[in-house]
């Protein structure tokens, strides 16, 4: 077992500290706005810390590490693309500032303002399903990481993961966004230290020239050229370019952080600061993956290689610090995601179908119940579901399920005068079609005729979802301008 008593002490102290701080923060929640968006008083640096912490989890380390291991340096292109996406949003305020100015809490609330209650309901369902499925594999990834990095047995692993989830669920349920923001900040500090420790030990144990020659030996040009690499190519690059803007701005957990900021300008700056760190937080775990390939060769399970490397090169004492950092990353992701999806379920799915409006107290209570249920779901789902494609592509495709339609609806709703309700329905439906088709067809892949095999290409499916969503919005709106005139905001 790699983990020694000193490492356990660091880990237990960190978990106990998080629980204490998270629960203490609940006393600052004075009303519903305090619970869902921390009273909209979050400033730039704090907002950036909480957004970055939300978007880094063990799952992101795992899938970027896996990509580095199976594709060499060519996957670094994702860091460059992601940086461009955030930079565009950060410089222009595209979507984020417009939504923040409307003082909404969830993205489907915008659908009701612009298109009507039915669109909000459908958009809420898609957002909730895509979002919860998206986070369904997080726990599995966390488990794989901890087994390899800590050398932990399955029984003990299940216990650590369950304790971690209970800690997160407790403070998220009780303190809402206030607890999330406060704990996110602490988790951001711990995860930054953990990442630095891991990177320094990797650099001390694996030479850069060895890494470069291993990549060329294993992959040839494909290891340094994303266009020729069969995992990527132009379809993937285009999908990621559009997706990095759409998913970044319309990912409800990330958007919630912009909604919690004290002004639309602060919301825009939060994305700008976060964008500056984006290439690094993508490329650092990818770099660990390439280092794992250099150290162990190509025969190790691709998902296990990176955590195995960290478990090998990081010594006891520092290992506890690094694992605390990784758990911090995951906890901040879980808390933000659970709060975001439970807010959507309560406010956009349950509330619209009730005849009487929910009171503030009942809305918060219902959100707390749904948060607990999501926690139970990810505990169960996370341990039995088999992931198709790579973990990164699974999360990207489930993300596309809601982000593609949301992108069509929100971007057009904010910036195109002719966007109407028919276009919105078409955009949401068609945007979800390709990803749902991919997930369903992947199960019967072996019996598909050769002509339809392109539908189970994850990159084609992801690209198609955005193409169909935008096409649906444009065609649907233009054909029905007279029967369904657009609503002005």
């Amino acid at each position, binding site marked *: 077992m790699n983990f020694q008593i000193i490492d356990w002490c660091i880990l237990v102290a960190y978990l106990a500290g998080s629980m204490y701080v998270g629960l203490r*923060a609940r006393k600052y929640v*004075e009303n519903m706005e305090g619970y869902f968006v921390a009273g909209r008083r979050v400033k730039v*640096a704090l907002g950036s810390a909480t957004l970055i912490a939300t978007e880094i989890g063990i799952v992101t380390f795992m899938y970027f590490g896996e990509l580095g291991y199976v594709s060499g340096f060519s996957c670094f292109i994702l860091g460059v693309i992601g940086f461009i996406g955030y930079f565009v949003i950060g410089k222009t305020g595209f979507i984020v500032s417009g939504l923040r100015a409307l003082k909404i809490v969830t993205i489907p609330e915008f659908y009701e303002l612009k298109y009507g209650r039915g669109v909000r309901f459908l958009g809420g369902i898609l957002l909730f399903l895509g979002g919860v499925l998206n986070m369904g594999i997080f726990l599995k990834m966390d488990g794989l990481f901890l087994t390899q990095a800590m050398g932990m047995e399955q029984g003990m692993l299940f216990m650590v993961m369950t304790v971690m989830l209970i800690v997160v669920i407790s403070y998220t349920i009780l303190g809402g966004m206030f607890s999330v923001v406060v704990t996110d900040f602490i988790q951001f500090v711990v995860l930054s230290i953990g990442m630095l420790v891991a990177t320094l030990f990797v650099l001390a144990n694996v030479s850069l020239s060895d890494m470069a020659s291993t990549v060329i030996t294993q992959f040839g040009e494909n290891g340094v050229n994303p266009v020729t690499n069969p995992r990527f190519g132009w379809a993937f690059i285009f999908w990621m370019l559009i997706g990095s803007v759409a998913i970044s701005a319309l990912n409800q957990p990330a958007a919630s952080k912009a909604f919690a900021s004290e002004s639309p300008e602060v919301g825009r700056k939060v994305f700008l600061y976060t964008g500056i*760190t984006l290439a*690094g*937080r993508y490329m650092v775990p990818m770099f660990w993956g390439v280092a794992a390939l250099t150290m162990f060769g190509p025969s190790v399970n691709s998902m296990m290689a990176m955590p195995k490397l960290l478990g090998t090169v990081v010594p006891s004492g520092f290992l506890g610090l690094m694992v605390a950092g990784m758990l911090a990353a995951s906890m901040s992701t879980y808390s933000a995601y659970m709060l975001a999806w439970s807010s959507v379920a309560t406010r956009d799915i349950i509330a619209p179908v009730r005849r009487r409006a929910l009171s503030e107290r009942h809305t918060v209570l219902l959100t707390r119940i749904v948060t607990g249920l999501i926690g139970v779901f990810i505990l169960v789902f996370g341990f039995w579901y088999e992931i198709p494609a790579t973990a990164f592509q699974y999360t990207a495709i489930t993300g596309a399920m809601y982000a593609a339609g949301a992108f069509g609806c929100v971007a057009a709703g904010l910036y195109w005068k002719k966007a109407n309700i028919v276009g919105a329905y078409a955009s949401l439906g068609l945007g979800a079609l390709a990803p749902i088709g991919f997930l369903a067809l992947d199960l019967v892949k072996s019996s598909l005729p050769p002509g339809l095999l392109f539908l189970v290409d994850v990159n084609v499916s992801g690209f198609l979802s955005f193409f169909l969503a935008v096409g649906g919005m444009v065609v649907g709106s233009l054909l029905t301008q007279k029967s369904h005139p657009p609503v002005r905001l």
Partner: protein
Amino acid sequence: MNPWALVWLIVFAAAALCFFGAALFIIIVGVGDLKDLLTTAAERAKRNP
């Protein structure tokens, strides 16, 4: 060393420096933001018990 591999390693170094540099800046300034958030929240709670 392959020239493209070298380019990617330089890009990685720049990205990692940006990440850790920005993280340090965010942590230092963020402490003030956090204090400010909690102070104003506590004052509001006192005004509206």
